[in-house]
């Protein structure tokens, strides 16, 4: 979506969602090109939780959107490289993205901006023409996250390097929203925030944890191929090549790019769900596993993360204590890799 000075982005209203339990309140709205969902108990905290989430999402969009001309990230790109003093929000977002790149050995890399543009993902996904006859441009491997120097809020960005924080931004948004809701509600009760299926929870969970469906696509929830898990703390996120696909010159493309080649990842796993201490960790790990391809199991095992991998043939592999049957809790580790390796503005936590 290309914006102009006259364009205003409206905030979609929250819609109450009835899930079958009176003891929690759930609401949903469109946000960041996907769906945001908030679940909270006690139910009377819903309005406060939604307002806190709105603030977080609006701020994140204005900081890190690649598709808004008025975002801080777009301003960096327009400046064409140099030395910048970032706002706290973008500094944290970029710090988390760089820490994720370091943790995953570059499997997720925030310098894939030009690679995505070359593939045709150059605007808000909803505005992409899904089928076009001409092929995409030649693939552009990522220049590499090590070229980007971030010292606190001070950024040195080489000219020609275009950033995309998609591998960590939704997870970061869910984490931020959970922290904001807990602060707004006085740490009473519990909250779950989902951004496009990347879920963080905080506070006191329901007994046995928050019931969460694991599915490859939103429409698949409730099907026999889905699984119910329970999450008491931490986060769970899913990355998949089954959504956000488009066609160029007869070739189907998707949004998870291998930074090493600039092409869509083409490994044996089409969907990976991972549980971790935070949603940014889980988000990065799930995407890294898709990109890692045949090495995904080794990488996830070394990282010590519970994960569920679904192959293109439908085969499901569960690692690191991920339950094989429905109804069981997800084990999560207490240690975050991306926040401990990132600069966090004072007072953010």
């Amino acid at each position: 979506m290309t914006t102009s000075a006259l364009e205003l982005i409206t905030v979609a209203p929250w819609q109450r969602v009835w899930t079958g339990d009176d003891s929690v309140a759930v609401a949903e709205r469109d946000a960041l090109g996907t769906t945001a969902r908030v679940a909270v108990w006690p139910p009377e905290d819903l309005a406060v939780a939604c307002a806190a989430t709105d603030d977080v999402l609006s701020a994140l969009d204005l900081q890190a959107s690649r598709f808004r001309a008025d975002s801080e990230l777009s301003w960096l790109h327009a400046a064409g490289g140099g030395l910048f003093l970032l706002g706290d929000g973008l500094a944290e977002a970029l710090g988390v993205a760089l820490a994720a790149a370091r943790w995953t050995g570059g499997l997720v890399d925030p310098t894939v901006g030009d690679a995505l543009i070359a593939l045709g993902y150059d605007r808000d996904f909803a505005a992409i023409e899904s089928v076009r006859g001409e092929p995409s441009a030649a693939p552009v491997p990522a220049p590499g996250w090590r070229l980007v120097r971030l010292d606190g809020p001070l950024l040195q960005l080489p000219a020609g390097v275009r950033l995309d924080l998609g591998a960590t931004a939704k997870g970061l948004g869910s984490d931020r929203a959970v922290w904001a809701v807990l602060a707004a509600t006085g740490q009473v009760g519990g909250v779950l925030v989902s951004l496009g299926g990347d879920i963080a929870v905080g506070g006191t969970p329901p007994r046995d944890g928050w019931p969460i469906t694991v599915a490859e696509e939103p429409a698949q929830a409730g099907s026999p191929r889905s699984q119910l898990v329970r999450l008491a703390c931490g986060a769970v996120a899913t990355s998949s090549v089954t959504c956000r696909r488009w066609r160029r010159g007869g070739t189907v493309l998707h949004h998870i790019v291998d930074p090493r080649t600039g092409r869509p990842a083409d490994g044996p796993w089409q969907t990976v769900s991972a549980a971790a201490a935070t949603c940014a960790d889980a988000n990065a790990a799930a995407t890294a596993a898709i990109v890692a391809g045949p090495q995904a199991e080794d990488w996830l095992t070394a990282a010590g993360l519970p994960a569920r991998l679904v192959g293109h043939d439908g085969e499901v592999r569960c690692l690191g204590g991920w339950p094989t049957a429905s109804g069981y809790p997800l084990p999560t580790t207490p240690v975050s890799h991306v926040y401990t390796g990132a600069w966090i503005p004072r007072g953010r936590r």
Partner: protein
Amino acid sequence: MDAERGYHDGRVPLPGSGDDDRAGQIPTRRDGIRQARRMTNWTAAALIVGTGAAAVALAHQALPAAGSAAGTAASAGTSAGRTGTSAGQAGTNTQGASGPQVTHSVATTTASGVTVTTTTRTVNGKTVVTQVRHAPAHADD
């Protein structure tokens, strides 16, 4: 003679101790029964108190066994009953130290579905609302 005064065990009451009143009384069968009854009452009281305390303790442990303690369920990796605290409030089936019982799924972790992007433009003083809807996935492959 002691035997004549009833001091069978050789004890002699001190003056003014009150036992003087009993002086000359011989412990009868009735005294024995009274003492036995007193012992029985104390034993019964102790049993009642002990039983009550045990019942309270058992009830306190039994409640949270139905659910898991906050924050510990995920790290344990099993689903069987965990200990914890729970204090259900009158009139609700929720709250207390642990959260409510939630049985239905509240969210789905999945690939990012794309929904609707709504934009509002101001053109020549008029507000133009545009909605762009995208199908979740292309089924052409």
